[in-house]
């Protein structure tokens, strides 16, 4: 009886094989192959196995490092802001919590590109913030102190702007898993700790913090992975010159330098790095499930 019903999943299994497994396998194949002109006269091309793509990646080490650096910084900032918010939210009453959750999730229903676009008009050289700074005389003040001759603070098209964009977009993904873990903590554990003599600080350090780690790990994963692979945020807020891994990959598929093999190789490396991070997280964390289900 039971095994017959498990066949219900068969259509999906086929779907997964077709649209999840095969594409990834193809990507792996592309990463390890190259099209080479076999015959100089006819221009005939053939596919050969090669590790060349990975070698080519070496030229882009700067990009790799930059992407990781920015992703780590964004994750750290999200953690610094997100943990306290999650903790404070968990202490509030159910009414507040419901509203707060809705408020945090609401921006996610507006498209992520729109949210990033919003920051452009704020950070631009003639954008809102700069106009504000000019109006209150901050720019003149800085010019006076530093002896410079700025018309505006260059905020857009900087690494800082990209970090800001990442934090803005991914902060909810840090807050929600941490919140969902802390709010489910058994209150009697806290009472027991107090009963045994622990004051507020100790209760937090010894009980709440360790028990909230699964949520923290979930949050870190949910922020780091999109942060390290983004290309829209870096394009919109970082300008054309700030290249991250995502931009690099995009160029291989859509830009003028069409090289799906190189692009696949970089994607493969990224996927492997992410899988390693996930494996480490899964050993200690609660996994994405909790975060998504909330």
């Amino acid at each position, binding site marked *: 009886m039971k095994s017959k019903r498990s066949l219900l999943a068969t259509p999906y299994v086929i779907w997964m094989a077709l649209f999840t497994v095969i594409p990834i396998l193809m990507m792996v194949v592309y990463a390890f192959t190259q099209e080479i002109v076999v015959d100089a006269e006819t221009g005939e091309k053939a596919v050969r196995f090669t590790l060349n793509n990975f070698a080519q990646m070496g030229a882009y080490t700067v990009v790799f490092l930059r992407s990781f650096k920015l992703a780590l910084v964004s994750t750290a900032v999200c953690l610094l802001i997100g943990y306290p918010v999650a903790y404070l939210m968990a202490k509030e009453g159910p009414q507040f919590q419901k509203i707060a959750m809705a408020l945090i999730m609401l921006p996610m229903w507006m498209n992520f590109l729109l949210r990033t676009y919003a920051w452009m008009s704020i950070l631009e050289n003639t954008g809102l913030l700069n106009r504000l700074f000019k109006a209150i005389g901050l720019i003149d003040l800085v010019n006076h102190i530093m002896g410079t001759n700025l018309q505006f603070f260059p905020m857009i098209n900087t690494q800082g702007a990209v970090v800001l964009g990442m934090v803005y977009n991914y902060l909810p993904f840090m807050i929600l898993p941490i919140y969902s873990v802390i709010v489910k903590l*058994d209150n*009697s*554990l806290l*009472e*027991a*700790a*107090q*009963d*045994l*003599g*622990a*004051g507020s600080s*100790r209760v937090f350090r*010894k*009980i709440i913090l*360790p*028990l909230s780690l699964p949520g923290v790990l979930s949050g870190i994963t949910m922020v780091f992975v999109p942060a390290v692979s983004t290309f829209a945020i870096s394009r919109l807020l970082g300008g054309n010159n700030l290249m991250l891994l995502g931009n690099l990959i995009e160029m291989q598929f859509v830009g003028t330098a069409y090289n799906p093999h190189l692009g696949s190789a970089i994607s493969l490396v990224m996927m492997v790095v992410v899988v390693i991070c996930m494996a480490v997280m899964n050993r200690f964390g609660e996994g994405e499930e909790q975060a998504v289900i909330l």
Partner: protein
Amino acid sequence: MSKELIRLANCTMAFDDEVVLDNIDLSIRDKEFLTLLGPSGCGKTTTLRIIGGFQTPTSGDLLFDGVRINAVPPYKRTINTVFQKYALFPHLNVYENIAFGLRIPKTDEKGKKLKLTEEEIDQRVTEMLEVVNLRGFEKRHISQLSGGQQQRVAIARALVNRPKVLLLDEPLGALDLKLRKDMQNELKRIQQAMEITFVYVTHDQEEALAMSDTVVVMDKGKIQQIGSPEDIYNEPKNAFVADFIGESNIIDGIMRADGVVEIFNRRFQCLDGGFAPDEAVDVVIRPEDVDIVPVDQGQLKGTVTNVTFKGMQYDIIVDFYGFKWLIQTTDLSPVGSLIGIKIDPDGIHVMKKSEYSGMFGDYSSYSEEYEEISDATFDPEDADQEGGDEE
């Protein structure tokens, strides 16, 4: 008699409109085993939590050793709690759970900070593991323990801090019967050996009677009676206590004079007095205090409606003038027989009427239950053939 250690003076606890504790006045003595007993919602757990510091009374005072401690947070009280669901820290092993309280530096009366060394901690934890019989379990993780073992870790974790008072919130509820009985003995033994005041909360009256020095019966936020187990059992103050503790037949009666009470228009001798002449009273007669005698020798006559074999005794439901009694006896009287009963004067206990009078009725529902159980073997196809005698 030892000194008074804890005092709740006129404590009331109200949440919005709901009054959970109604003007409670309770005194707990040093080194005694006191149990708060009552049905769900009677306020016993709230009382416990007030003593522990997890709730502050809406009005009234909580005194510890004569000092008012209403505002003192739990981590500053020399009181420890064993929680109902144990509340063991899931991320720490057995050793660290027990050592948790010991690792916290305490300040003594002079304001000096005391910190225990690692050796001292180790010694105390090992000692406590010995007391609760969990030697060798130090490195185990909480999830690997059975219910009974978790229970003992919870007790060890609380006791290792040598508190003056231990609060226990229905700690044995999740254990099976045999384990529960063993733990009851264990707890009593520990309490007497360590000379700590235990304040115990339960709804199981057998448990309360077995373990306590003092029993406090509560209902609806009020204390119904305080006394030793024997007092509570033999001399309940009102119908609620009589009904809650053990089985009892509660009958309307009239007090004719000191030592003479009238039920079913017959007078009985009893040991109680101090009532107004002809005052309406509740009369309690325990099922085991009723002797079955031949019809002509009995003070009352009745018909047996049910007999159920309970192992230790028979439960017999007898109909006296429309009122069904429960009698527990080792003599078998068959269903339908007419019997007489005799009750010794000390088997009759008279109580003043209270708001609980008339609430508990007779044993007709038991009677129906027993009928159904015995009818379960009855084949409906034979119904037409049986000539029933309805009397």
